[in-house]
């Protein structure tokens, strides 16, 4: 048992434990914080599996953007915390049963079938990819992402565009009484439309 293996199991168990807390905790804010903990530990697992670049991306994108987005929404929506627990207990038996059955089947498959089904299931997964002597992990990803996988890259870009349009369509509301700056109108203003010269006779007012 070396240090790497030890860390693997430590990260894995903390990751799983925080995932349990995510779905079990009463307070959504705690839940988001545990989600962050789960992701940070998953990032640790990634480093051990030779994916350093992704570990950093996971922390930056997930913790930095997605989890914070969750926090924003949770804080914006003013959720009533006491009422939230009720439903959980009602649905736990069904959900738990499905989860346990599913988990049991997959574990049985991995344990029983591992040797027979996948000759490489016992192969180590902690060697760096590609071998560090050739190129760094980031460089290796960069070499294929924009060449062999350019199609995926573009398609993912279009998916993000859809997400952007979708979020705007669903939530942007133009309130009629809000004053907005209209640059085109401002630029189009001329002396003729903007000011009016009145000749005022002295001592009489307008």
């Amino acid at each position, binding site marked *: 048992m*070396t240090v790497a293996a030890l860390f693997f199991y430590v990260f894995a168990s903390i990751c799983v434990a925080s995932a349990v807390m995510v*779905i079990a905790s009463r307070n959504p804010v705690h839940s988001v914080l545990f989600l962050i903990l789960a992701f940070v530990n998953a990032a640790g697992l990634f480093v051990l*599996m030779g994916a350093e670049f992704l570990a950093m991306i996971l922390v930056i994108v997930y913790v930095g953007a997605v989890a914070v987005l969750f926090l924003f929404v949770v804080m914006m929506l003013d959720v009533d915390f006491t009422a939230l627990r009720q439903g959980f207990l009602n649905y736990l038996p069904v*959900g738990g049963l499905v989860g346990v059955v599913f*988990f049991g089947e997959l574990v049985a498959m991995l344990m029983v079938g591992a040797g027979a089904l996948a000759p*490489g299931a*016992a192969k180590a997964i902690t060697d760096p990819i590609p071998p560090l002597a050739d190129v760094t992990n980031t460089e290796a990803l960069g070499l294929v992402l924009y060449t062999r996988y350019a199609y995926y890259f573009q398609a993912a870009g279009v998916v993000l565009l859809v*997400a952007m349009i979708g979020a705007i369509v669903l939530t942007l509301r133009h309130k009629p009484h809000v004053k907005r700056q209209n640059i085109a109108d401002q630029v189009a203003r001329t002396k003729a439309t903007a000011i009016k010269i009145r000749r005022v006779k002295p001592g009489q007012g307008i």
Partner: protein
Amino acid sequence: MAGIPLSHGLLVAVVLFALGLVGVLARRNLVFMLMSIEIMLNAAGLAFIAGGARWAQPDGQIMFILVLTLAAAEVSVGLALILALYHRLETLDADAADKLKG
């Protein structure tokens, strides 16, 4: 380097995926459901990376980048939908959304 077998990597992924599934099925609060879905997607990403490591290809990691991108897209649409519903119903309880039953 010490060997952590693929099956252990996949085991972590299975546990996370099952937890996410339980979360989606058991929690009725939409924000929790969305977080559970995130856990499921993360589990799938972990399995991809473990697979990539087992076959010594960078492909598994590329898949993860895509999973991450798409998961982020999914979250933003999901949260937008949640906001739109909250705007109408003032609740996040999925059971309150019961206008459609037959």
